[in-house]
């Protein structure tokens, strides 16, 4: 059986005349020498870029944290006094009675001692007495003042402003 003839058999490649080996050695040296600075420049550029990259990363992190805080649902904070005001006298009494063992002797003595004059002078009314109950009527207050012989004229204007 005859071997199928290819069209490529009609074409005869001519071997290319190659440059001498020296040419390739010189080419390599030339390329390696001329382009070596580019390689180091590439590395230097990377090193120079690092602080900028770190700074950018830090800004991103801080920004993200602030954004999270900003976006977080705001929690209404209540003061200690307002929580206390919501409790009834009985509830407070109950709590103190059931937890009386949690308090040291010194704490109990300190809590029960009378308020000194010095403290009265340096503190505001609310700091000493807590808060003024809203349900207290003016007549009740006046009655209390009369019974205790408290004359409002004895107080200066600043002291009375606390009411």
């Amino acid at each position: 059986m005859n071997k199928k003839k290819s069209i490529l058999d009609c074409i005869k490649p001519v071997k290319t005349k190659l440059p001498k080996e020296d040419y390739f050695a010189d080419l390599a040296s030339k390329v390696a020498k001329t382009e070596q600075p580019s390689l180091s420049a590439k590395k230097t550029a990377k090193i120079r870029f690092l602080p900028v990259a770190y700074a950018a990363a830090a800004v991103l992190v801080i920004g993200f944290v602030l954004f999270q805080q900003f976006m977080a649902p705001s929690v209404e904070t209540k003061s200690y006094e307002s929580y206390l005001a919501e409790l009834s006298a009985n509830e407070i009494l109950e709590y103190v009675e059931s937890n009386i063992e949690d308090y040291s002797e010194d704490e109990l003595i300190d809590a029960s001692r009378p308020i000194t004059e010095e403290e009265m002078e340096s503190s505001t009314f609310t700091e000493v007495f807590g808060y003024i109950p809203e349900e207290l009527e003016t007549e009740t207050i006046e009655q209390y003042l009369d019974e205790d012989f408290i004359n409002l004229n004895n107080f200066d204007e600043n002291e009375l402003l606390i009411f």
Partner: protein
Amino acid sequence: MTEQDQKWRDTIQKGGRKAEQAFQELTIFYGPKLYAQVYKLVKNDTSAKDVLQETFIKIWLNIDKFEGKSSLYSWLYRITHNEALNFLKKEKRKSSISLDQNIIELIPGAYQLQGKGPNEILALLNQAISNLPDKQALVFELKYFQDLSYREIKVITGTSEGALKASFHLAKEKISNFLISQLNHSPLG
């Protein structure tokens, strides 16, 4: 990737004096094959050397990007081919006729070639090779144009001789069919 290719790549990636030496070895080994490949496309020595220089600059700067999934020669072949095509595009010389030496010769009286000249046939041949997958193209290049033995190609590509023979056979068939279709020729018996 062959052991030698890996050694060259790793040494060049590390940089320094040894890198230059490794690069020189690589250039001396692959340079002639790549020169022949370029010459076939650009058709003269000066242009081939210009393209080859650009090619080796690219290789020097980008060898760290070569992952070693294919043979080093496949990678070099692709870079070289692209550089040559870019050169031709820039110079607008794709169809120019400025030969320093013949690249192919035609068998006198070969009626299958429809009276076409060597340059027309070479242009068709190059076009046919461009259409091939890289592996087939480079095997065809090394076997047909550079007349290397399968054993030599095996060393370069790290592919078994059997696989190389199959690749060359497929490449030859595809190129023949392309030439026949382009020359409006019926298959030869």
